[in-house]
């Protein structure tokens, strides 16, 4: 070291102290981040569950609507209406 620098033992002692103090701060920060992230994880997990429920509801509604649509298209009335539409289009030519 240059003349104004501390002797190695003094340097080691000083840096040990600084390192320990900072390690404690780092631990506090890391702990706070872990708590914050855990809370966010919990919140987001709830959100995921809620959204999944919405998806299942939507899928069930869609399935019901599809079945209703199929039943409608299979009915005699629908087929008669479809046939009359085709005849009208041909006559119109």
């Amino acid at each position, binding site marked *: *070291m*240059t003349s*104004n*620098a*501390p*002797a*190695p033992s*003094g*340097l*080691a002692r*000083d*840096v*040990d102290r*600084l*390192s320990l103090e*900072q390690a404690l701060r*780092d631990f506090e*920060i*890391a702990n706070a*981040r872990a708590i914050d992230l855990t809370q966010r994880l919990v919140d987001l997990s709830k959100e995921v569950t809620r959204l999944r429920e919405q998806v299942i509801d939507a899928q069930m509604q869609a399935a019901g609507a599809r079945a209703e649509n199929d039943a409608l298209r299979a009915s005699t009335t629908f087929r008669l209406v479809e046939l009359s539409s085709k005849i009208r289009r041909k006559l119109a030519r």
Partner: protein
Amino acid sequence: MSDTPSVGEGRTLVGVLVYGGEEFVPACLESAARLTAAGDADVVVFDDHTPDEAWSASIAAQCESLGLGYYRSPRNLGIPRNMNLTLLRALDAGYDHVIIANSDVVFPENLVAALVAVAKEDPTIASVTAWSNHVSAFSLENLNAPENIGTQDAIDRISNLLAAHFGTRSIPVPVGVGFCMLMSTAMVREVGLFDPIFGRGYCEEVDWCLRARALGYRNVLAPAAYVFHIGNATSKAYGVLEHWESSDPANEAIIDLRYPDYRQVLEAHDRTRVVHELRAEAERVLLLAAAAELGYVLEVSGLGREFDYGPEARFVLDPSGTRRTLRAFHGGYEAEIPVDATPVPEQLTALVGRPPRALVVRERSAVAPRLVAECEAAGIPVSDEYRYPQAVVPVMDGVGVTDA
């Protein structure tokens, strides 16, 4: 023992992070010792608990013999937390500036003076990054850096040439690069330490510089301090990075999350071409200095070969080029020198301060005879490599091929 450096000297603390590195650490420490010899810096080597204790002991012994401070962490901390020890030490001991540096480098003797001078130019400067052959997108690359600039004398020469030309000039960069970066301790106090979230390292200085930027401060690159840098040497040796990586993707993802516009800022900076222009200017300075110092040859050739085949610089005129530009080569650097319609030897003599030692002809366009005439008029020897001496004129199918 004094815990606080006296005013006017020892105001900069250089912290060198070491982890293994038997191949390159000795050269780094020797160059670091020269920084302390200049009396304007103290150097402390922070050994991040190198696994090989015998090598750690050897580093400690080298530091003691070179007059450098040495500290070995009781356990491995990773780059950000280990570099934080440098910052904390600088704050605690009352330094004005702190330089964090990797150990796969060779420092030039003017490093501290050049970086501090730039930092003192403007109180809004948060970080000053040294220039290098390997400093991310801002590099002034060298074709064969270990051989050309990997020694103390070579890097001192290059850095002193650049310092003489650029002085305290700096260019703005979006972020600094932690391989060799100076910060004032006042700025460290305001912006804070490196975030340990970056674990084993990479991107911690990007985060720091972007935090400083968000506070209204600037990051700059100092072309007057040029450091030889191997790059990723420890990280790849110890598996922090894969061989194809130059940064840690997980840490880059943190940057992307925290600073969604960062990549756009980088692209916008690249479009300014400020680094490109600085590079071109520096290469011109280095090439002209080499030519003035060691001499040079003028060459007319369609092939822009980059390698050196002698100690001299080479100025190559490509006859097929649309612009009249000389490409200059020396010591792993390449520069473009525009020329006008006046005789090229005259222009070069004025530019370099001495005439070319010779003209070397390596092609057969109309440009070659003109250059030959210009050189012969100026008394410059001509070496035409395509002209066979009569004694060795090849004979093909019984017909003698005469020299045109």
